[in-house]
């Protein structure tokens, strides 16, 4: 037996501050057509043991946010134009690269949205999981393999022992996603960013995976950022919800509140679009219109061109993320009226 | 003929075995190229003959001071009046390295084996002066009628025609005696030839790597080899060998690359020297083509070449401009025998104009042998001085090159060379210029010349030289080939070799058996 290398010391920061805090983050992409402002002053806070669900329009910058937190944004074309990302009070963006590297995978870990391209096609999945143990914990080859089989079993891969040596392309979409999950939770991170972790999973497996994440959360007081479109899952597991639109957070609230009383028209629209399992076959309610072009952001509230309640104020002034009631904030000029359900849509916006 | 011992090597005090023991001995590593073969009767090139020269001793040897034949296995020889019958008396204590004794019969057997067409030995054609050659070659006879052993140590030759250079010719590699085992299995024989020379093989011939020989202590000749052992290192590339001598890995090399001659002195200081050789380079002219049948054209072409300029600038002085056909080191060679070999551009231009020489030329040479540069220089001079506008080159692999000659398809001046297998003016001329001879690529035919050569061959050696010179005059006047250069050879050696002991001969170049190794 080789004595395992001393594990890399886990990061000890300011325990009083929130686990993870994103402050006024700005991210841009340089494209031919101009500068695309993917993230425009994003603020979120994650506490230990908390599950923060990030919902939002497809293309609203959820994955970019996750990548920026992980420090794996492609630069160029990406570019962090401003803001801070604080992990236990310390800014990740100005941290020494080597120190930051040691946080990755160990303290802050991520499940990628696309499992197939995120897995190395030429390495066996078992190897890819085992790498976590081998590099960060100095575990030997055999032991790491055992551990990775255990991880695969944990995420419900059948016949894990036989399939550790298989390559990503030999797995189904959902199985790959579970491999990603196994890899991300291998070292019991403090913060787990899960970017649509269960899109390719059937509901039973999804439930199993969510239970697993919950367990970890309880065990390690892990903070979980869950990026998903599945409002069912969110309802099931989230403590707090942030709704994103066009690179900004539109509404942040406790999970119970937001389903019952959204305080932002976009959230309202989202909730209206959900198909029901008791499925009446009526048309689904989509929010009309297109999201704004990131290279050419509208003035004022980015949602105003599609908002049924919009007024001139909305196109003139960008609303701040302000409280509606305690712990429930919204970036809408008319948040209170919407919260209370008293605001009437504009005439012409009623389809 | 004469039995003049002629071994007047007064200049070389080291040759005395036993006398100057201090200087003798040691191992010399010398440059060599990979021999085609190590079968005396089959060896035609320099790499092989250099080795064979040490492994074998023929009936005669050559004294390179006087260019006369001196005793080898034969102690004495004489001929009849018209040089057609020769008697050689052999020394009695000669043996092969394996102990087999050598007598007159050894030679008879060797010669019969060599000419036997079944054995396909390349040097066979040297035997064509001996009576019965044709019959053997054509399969009509088993043995050469013209070679007989009258007793154990007397060998008689009967020749088809008078041939005074015979003793000289017999020094040639193709006439070395061979033991019986050579005839039984020639292929394995040449991996480790058993001869009767100053040195004997140590182990087999390591192809492309080396050939090692040790001094044969029982050699009965006059001046045995000085080094105890000679190792020829085989190189593909002379540049590399040169570097190795510079580095001291190799003791000596005798063919310094031409482009190195200018740096030779800087690289080696006193450890270098130059020697003249018999290696003759000429520009042949296909007389079977109409344009070249006018000898004025040939003269003009010759006079338009500034040989010295080419030698200075392309060969770094490593050639001697050829003003004759007989190599300068032979006693019969003369200076200024040639009227048309001196550079005279005006006369050349005029002559060429008058003779209406061709306005387009193709120059032929064999590729990959380093002839490009000087041929190009010649072409430039012809262009410049004779106003020939269009000169192109045809460079071919040697085999294909010879093919063109055989089929008389050459249409312009061609490069060829000639090295003396034995140092006789006869050999410098007869094979190349007499009517119908196989090396007569120019297709030259001149009755007067043919007669003069025959006359010289029949004459007493004392008179022969002047007749050969007359023959040479005809060549220089008729100019079937434009003499270009005689090659000089650079020799470089490491500090291990005593500089004074470095000696050359014009045929096999460095006399490696004379080298003295400095004590370490």
């Amino acid at each position, binding site marked *: 037996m080789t004595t395992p290398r001393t594990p890399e010391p886990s990061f000890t920061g300011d325990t009083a501050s929130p686990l993870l805090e994103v402050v006024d983050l700005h991210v841009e992409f*340089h494209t*031919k057509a101009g500068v695309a402002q993917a993230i425009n002053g994003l603020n979120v806070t994650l506490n230990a043991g908390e599950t923060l669900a990030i919902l939002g329009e497809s293309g609203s910058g959820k994955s970019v946010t996750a990548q920026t937190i992980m420090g794996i944004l492609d630069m*160029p*074309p990406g570019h962090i134009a401003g803001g801070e990302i604080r992990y236990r009070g310390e800014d990740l963006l100005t941290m020494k690269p080597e120190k930051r590297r040691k946080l990755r995978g160990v303290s802050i870990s991520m499940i990628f949205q696309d499992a*197939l391209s995120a897995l190395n096609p030429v390495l066996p999945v078992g190897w890819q999981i085992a790498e976590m143990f081998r590099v960060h914990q100095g575990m030997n080859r055999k032991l790491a393999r055992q551990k990775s089989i255990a991880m695969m079993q944990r995420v419900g891969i059948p016949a894990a022992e036989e399939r550790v040596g298989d390559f990503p*392309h030999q797995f189904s979409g959902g199985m790959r996603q579970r491999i990603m999950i196994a890899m991300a939770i291998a070292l019991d991170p403090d913060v787990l960013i899960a970017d649509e972790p269960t899109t390719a999973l059937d509901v039973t497996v999804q439930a199993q995976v969510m239970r697993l994440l919950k367990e970890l959360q309880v065990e390690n007081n892990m903070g979980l950022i869950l990026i998903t479109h599945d409002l069912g899952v969110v309802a099931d597991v989230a403590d707090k919800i942030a709704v994103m639109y066009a690179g900004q957070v539109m509404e942040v609230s406790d999970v119970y509140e937001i389903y019952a009383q959204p305080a932002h028209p976009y959230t309202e629209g989202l909730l209206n679009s959900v198909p029901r399992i008791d499925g009446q076959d009526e048309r689904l309610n*989509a929010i*009309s*219109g*297109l999201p704004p072009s990131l290279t050419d952001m509208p003035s004022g509230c980015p949602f105003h*061109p*599609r908002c049924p309640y919009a007024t001139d104020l909305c196109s003139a002034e960008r609303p701040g993320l302000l409280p509606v009631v305690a712990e429930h904030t919204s970036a809408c000029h008319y948040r209170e009226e919407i919260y209370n359900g008293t605001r009437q849509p504009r005439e012409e916006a009623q*389809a | 003929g004469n039995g003049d011992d002629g071994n007047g090597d007064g200049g070389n005090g080291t040759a005395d075995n036993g006398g100057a023991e201090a200087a003798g001995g040691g191992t010399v590593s010398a440059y060599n190229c990979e021999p085609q073969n190590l079968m005396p009767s089959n060896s035609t090139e320099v790499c092989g003959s250099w080795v064979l020269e040490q492994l074998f001793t023929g009936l005669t040897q050559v004294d390179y001071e006087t260019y006369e034949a001196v005793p080898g296995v034969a102690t004495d020889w004489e001929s009849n009046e018209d040089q057609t019958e020769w008697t050689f008396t052999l020394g009695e204590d000669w043996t092969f390295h394996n102990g087999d004794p050598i007598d007159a019969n050894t030679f008879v057997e060797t010669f019969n084996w060599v000419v036997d067409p079944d054995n396909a030995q390349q040097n066979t054609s040297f035997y064509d002066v001996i009576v019965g050659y044709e019959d053997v070659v054509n399969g009509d006879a088993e043995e050469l009628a013209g070679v007989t052993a009258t007793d154990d140590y007397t060998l008689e030759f009967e020749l088809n025609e008078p041939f005074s250079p015979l003793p000289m010719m017999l020094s040639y590699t193709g006439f070395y005696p061979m033991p019986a085992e050579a005839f039984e299995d020639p292929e394995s024989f040449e991996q480790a030839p058993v001869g009767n020379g100053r040195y004997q093989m140590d182990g087999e011939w390591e192809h492309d790597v080396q050939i090692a020989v040790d001094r044969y202590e029982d050699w009965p000749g006059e001046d045995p080899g000085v080094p105890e052992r000679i190792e020829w290192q085989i190189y593909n590339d002379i*540049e590399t060998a040169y570097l190795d001598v510079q580095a001291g890995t190799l003791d000596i090399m005798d063919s310094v*690359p031409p*482009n190195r001659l*200018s*740096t030779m002195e800087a690289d080696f200081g006193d450890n270098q020297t130059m020697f003249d050789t018999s290696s003759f380079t000429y520009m042949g002219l296909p007389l079977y083509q109409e344009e070249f049948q006018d000898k004025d054209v040939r003269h003009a072409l010759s006079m338009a070449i*500034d040989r010295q*300029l*080419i030698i200075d*600038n*392309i060969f770094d002085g490593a050639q001697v401009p050829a003003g004759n056909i007989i190599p300068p080191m032979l006693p019969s060679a003369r200076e200024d025998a040639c009227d048309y070999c001196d550079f005279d551009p005006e006369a050349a231009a005029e002559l060429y104009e008058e003779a209406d020489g061709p306005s387009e030329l193709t120059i032929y040479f*064999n*590729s*990959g042998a380093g002839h*490009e*540069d000087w041929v*190009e*220089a010649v*072409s*430039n*001079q012809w*262009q*410049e001085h004779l106003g020939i506008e269009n*000169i*192109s*080159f*045809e*460079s*071919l*692999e040697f085999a*294909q090159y010879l093919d063109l000659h055989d089929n008389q398809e050459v249409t312009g001046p061609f490069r060829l060379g000639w090295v003396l297998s034995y140092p006789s003016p006869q050999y410098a001329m007869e094979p190349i210029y007499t009517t119908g001879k196989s090396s007569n690529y120019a297709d030259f035919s001149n009755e007067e010349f043919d007669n003069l050569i025959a006359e010289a061959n029949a004459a007493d050696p004392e008179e022969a030289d002047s007749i050969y010179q007359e023959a040479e005059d005809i060549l220089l006047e008729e100019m079937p080939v434009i003499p270009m250069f005689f090659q000089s050879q650079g020799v470089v050696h490491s500090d291990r070799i005593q500089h004074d002991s470095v000696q050359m001969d014009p045929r096999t170049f460095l006399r490696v058996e004379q080298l003295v190794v400095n004590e370490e």
Partner: protein
Amino acid sequence: MTELNKAHTVAAGEPPPAPKKAKAQEEASLWMDAWRSLRRNPWFVVSAVLLVVLVTMALFPQLFTDNDPRACPLSRSRQEPSAEHWFGTDIQGCDYYARVIYGAANSMAVGVIVSLSVFVIGVALGLVAAFFGGWVDAVLMRLTDLVFAIPYLLGALVFLAVQSERSVWDVSLILIVFTWPTFARLMRGSVLAVINNDYITAARALGAGPLTIMRRHILPNSLGPVVGYAAVFTGIVIGAEATLTFLGVGLQLPAISWGLQLDEAKSYLQQLPHLLTFPLIFVALTVFAFTSMGEALRDALDPKSKKR
């Protein structure tokens, strides 16, 4: 699509925007995008300019020198560079500057003809072999083995037998015949690496035939290594041409080419270094131009690596 458009029109809040923007949008394809980004790549511009100069030199050497490259008085042989002879003179006494300038034509021609041809042949055969696999692959690949096995000197010598005058084209042909297999194998390798991608499957699902798949999907994604090698290969060919000449099967002497100059200079490395230096600079510049260009092209064809 009545209801749909209605629904959509409402959703979009204005008449269908597509046609409006169609005019405004410049049509883009990978190749056009590549061209656009190439134009802005300084390395590309530099190498393009360099190539233009070299090609001009090959086509109109008179523009660069008044000296006759074939005026070679031996009396001024081996001169060092001087005001009169910028590059000195060579063994024959020719003005080396003029020689080098005039050498461009043959060298560039052989270099470009050969690399272009083997590129095309190699890409086509490698693509076909990898795409169809099975016996097609086996036959083509064994063919490459075969060509590898035949010594090219032998081929060249035999070719010579049926050829009396040798032009640039003949020399190129010999080189092409014996060098395409490397390209074919290189291409085959990168196609094999690409062919298992899902987008190829997707194209098949769309009903794309083999040709279309190869041309539109495989080619742009697998060309990189071959392009890179072809660029370098140009330089290798320029040298190889000289070898042939010295075996008597290359360009007919007294041809002028960089390869021949380099070859001649080899013997005088220490004595006359300028003989090596000047043609070498030109060959190096050519290779540099081609490789930079190849690389710029490769960069341009990779949407992800696009610098802005």
